[in-house]
C-alpha cells in the first residue's frame, strides 16, 4: 500500500530564517505531487505541483520554492521566512483521475 510522510510535524522559526519541509511517498511510482498551505480557518491553497523529477509548477507568487530531486521526494523551501508563511502545510500525491492522498501535515509558526 502507499504511504506519504512529511517532516517535521511541527516547526517554529524566526522571521528571516530559512525553511525546508520534506515529503516522501512510498509504494507508488511517478506520482503527481502537490504542496498546499492551509492558513488558520481557511481552505487549501495550492502552492506547487510536480508531474516528474525536476518539473515544478508554481501556482502563486511568493517567497517559497519547491524541488523534486527524486521521483518520490518533494521539498518545500524558503530562503527567508515571513510572518505570513505561518500555516499548516500539506503534501499530497495523486494518479490522474483519482483522488488525492494527503500527508499528515507540518504546522509552521513563524515568529
Amino acid at each position: 500500500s502507499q504511504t506519504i510522510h512529511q517532516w517535521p510535524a511541527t516547526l517554529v522559526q524566526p522571521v528571516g530564517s530559512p525553511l525546508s519541509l520534506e515529503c516522501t511517498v512510498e509504494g507508488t511510482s511517478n506520482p503527481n505531487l502537490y504542496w498546499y498551505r492551509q492558513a488558520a480557518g481557511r481552505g487549501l491553497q495550492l502552492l506547487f505541483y510536480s508531474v516528474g523529477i525536476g518539473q515544478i509548477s508554481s501556482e502563486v507568487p511568493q517567497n517559497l520554492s519547491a524541488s523534486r530531486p527524486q521521483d518520490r521526494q518533494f521539498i518545500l523551501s524558503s530562503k527567508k521566512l515571513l510572518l505570513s508563511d505561518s500555516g499548516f502545510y500539506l503534501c499530497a500525491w495523486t494518479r490522474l483521475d483519482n483522488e488525492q492522498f494527503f500527508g499528515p501535515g507540518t504546522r509552521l509558526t513563524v515568529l
Partner: protein
Amino acid sequence: AQSVTQLDSQVPVFEEAPVELRCNYSSSVSVYLFWYVQYPNQGLQLLLKYLSGSTLVKGINGFEAEFNKSQTSFHLRKPSVHISDTAEYFCAVKYQGTNAGKSTFGDGTTLTVKP
C-alpha cells in the same frame, strides 16, 4: 474561472440529527467530484468521490452525496451524525482535462456535533 463554493462555513448540529453540507461548483466541462474530511491537526482523508455513473454516491462513515449536474451541486449528507463526525469537510472538483490532476477545493465547512 473555476470555483468551488461551500455555502456554509460552520454547521452546528445535535448528535443523531441529520446533516447536509452544501457544495456548488462552476463548470462548463465534465467534472470529477470529491468530499474530504480533516480532523484537527491531520491531513485530509477521502470520504467519497463521483467519477461517473450513479449520481448518488456512498462513502465511508455513513456519508453519501448526490451529484446534480443541472444545479452544479454535490451536497454531502448523513442521516444521523455522531460526536466523532466533528471535523472540517472539504468539497473538491477536478475538471476533466485539467493539467496534472489538480483539484480545486472549497474553503471548508466546520461540522460541530453537540451531545
